[in-house]
């Protein structure tokens, strides 16, 4: 997602055109109209929907009221849900950084056949349906799952990790950590390996070399990977729905339930809009911060 912003900048400078040119509009016009209609109209409709009233006896009431927003923003029940959602986002992101960034570096230093094999193994799960991967964790964390039995054997816990925060974090890290690996991997490919040798030749220890020469160069990759992982975790549905079920709701599962269980559409729509705005704010603020920090040193040279 951080890449999105870099595409906005002009890629080359050409002489300004004096005459209006119809060709680009002919090329992307149909697609643009489709996107405007398919994105704009539904989102506006959802905003309108979120302003409707609702009662369990009458269902939808076509008025204009902020009642759903008030409920979503005031009710401690939803506070807890949003707090859980963003706490999971931060926690999962941090764990993904700690695991994914070193893994990308280790893979980059493997010998040729192993490098490809390990890269495929680390990125491949990204292509496997989230539902299948989450099912794997249900089987591992369930009452007779391998992990549960192992934990029981060691005596750490006798409870299964299903329906716990720990279980959700483990499964979410599994689902999203490949994004961190790929992001850091892409950044590492731009690092001149001779800079590592240069640092060593100047007397740096291996740790100093990693901290002062490698880490700063891959930091943009870590930051953009973090943004992707955070945004995806905060809006994740399948994994929290299956591992956390209805006991540990997050924003996405709460919206789902408002729509398909309670049928309180206005409240569901309001929750969706709040999630959209919060995520957009985080992305926007993060991009601003990162760009300001890195335009000078590691801008697109």
């Amino acid at each position: 997602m951080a890449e999105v912003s870099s595409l906005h900048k002009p890629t080359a400078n050409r002489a300004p055109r004096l005459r209006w040119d119809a060709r680009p509009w002919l090329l992307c016009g149909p697609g643009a109209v489709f996107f405007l209609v398919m994105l704009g109209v539904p989102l506006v409709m959802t905003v309108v929907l979120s302003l409707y009233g609702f009662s369990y006896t009458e269902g939808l009431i076509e008025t204009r009221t902020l009642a759903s927003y008030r409920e979503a923003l005031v009710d401690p029940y939803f506070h807890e849900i949003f707090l859980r959602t963003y706490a999971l986002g931060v926690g999962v992101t941090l764990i993904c950084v700690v695991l994914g960034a070193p893994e990308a570096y280790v893979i980059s230093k493997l010998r040729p056949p192993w490098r490809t094999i390990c890269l495929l193994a680390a990125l491949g799960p990204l292509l496997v349906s989230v539902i299948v991967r989450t099912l794997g964790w249900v089987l591992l964390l369930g009452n007779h799952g391998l992990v549960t039995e192992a934990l029981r054997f060691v005596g750490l816990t006798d409870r299964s990790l299903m329906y716990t925060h720990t279980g959700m974090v483990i499964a979410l890290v599994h689902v999203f950590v490949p994004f961190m690996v790929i992001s850091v991997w892409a950044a590492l490919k731009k690092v001149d390996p001779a800079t590592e040798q240069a640092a060593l030749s100047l007397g740096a220890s291996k740790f100093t070399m990693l901290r002062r020469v490698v880490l700063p160069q891959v930091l943009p990759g870590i930051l953009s990977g973090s943004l992707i992982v955070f945004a995806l975790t905060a809006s994740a549905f399948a994994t929290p729905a299956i591992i956390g079920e209805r006991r540990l709701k997050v924003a996405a599962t709460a919206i789902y339930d408002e729509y398909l269980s309670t049928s309180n559409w206005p409240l569901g729509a309001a929750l969706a809009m709040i999630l959209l705005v919060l995520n957009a704010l985080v992305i926007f603020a993060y991009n601003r911060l990162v760009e300001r920090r890195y335009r000078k040193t590691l801008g697109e040279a």
Partner: protein
Amino acid sequence: MSYLSLAGLSKRYGDFTAVEDFTLDIEQGEFVSLLGPSGCGKTTTLSMIAGFTTPTSGRIEMAGTELSRVPANKRGIGIVFQSYALFPHMTVSENVRFGLDMRRIKGTECTQRVADALELVRMGGFAKRYPRELSGGQRQRVALARALVIRPPLLLLDEPLSNLDAKLREEMQSELRQIQQRVGTTTIMVTHDQSEALSMSDRVVVMRDGRMVQVADPLQTYESPIDAFVSGFVGKTNLLEGRLVADQAGRTMLHLGELRLEIDAASRAAPVSVSLRPEKLRLVPIGQGRLSARVVGRQFAGAAWHYRVETGLGELMVNAPNLGAPSHANGERVDVDWPLAAMHLLDTEPRPLDPANAAGAPDHG
């Protein structure tokens, strides 16, 4: 005892031998070039001295200390990398300061040494810039300053000028050499560019297929190449096939086609190759030279004319300084002449390195 002593250095990767028995003694302050085509092992040799590649066998001794088991970050050797390897996230002065930070040199000494190093490479005004804001030549200078600021006992240059354009490369050649002489750091440079090796070094080591072929000073490397490979790789040359024959009077005659030339060499009655540098040949009026010829091609290079002439010995390259006189035309008949001393006899078989050139070289079977 020499300052840097490399003895029997070898590197094998499985069945592949990258470097075989590299033996060389280098004096303090000397500038030595490792010259050869890509894949000749010169870079692997440099990498072993730097400590990035562990030798399969052999010893590296500097000022009496055995280095082969010392890790790269404890050797204190200054290196200028082919890609310069400047840290892109640090400014010029931060780059140069890095090595001093590692040595915990702080305060005014640190500031002063960074400033001095940047002055030395005439980059004093660029301290606050980032590498990507510099031109290739400027990055090169910063890389040199970064390597020299730690006052290394040895400076390694890995194809340092290969990323610069031709004109800048020539300027940097003489500047690099001047700086090296001023600072007095013992230097080893790897290059595939023979003119670079000849113009900068005190001694040139020509390498091929992981082995040293010839170690000599630049003039000797050029004038007395040890075999056909060196004569062809270092400069351009005309290689002629001939025979040495002893005549009835006991003189050694060189038979080159129809030519019979008396030369000052021990008679060996053997086939020989003769190297004749193009700039030593002269085109003279018919009847005044050793060989009759016809001009078949010519090229103007500003300071000189490069001719191709057809002779009884095959096609020869002849370089003539441009003295302002009209040149020979294509198809013109001329004679080719050269002083006898310009001929350099080569063995037709590549022969092992003369131990006298590389001190202490063991037998190369």
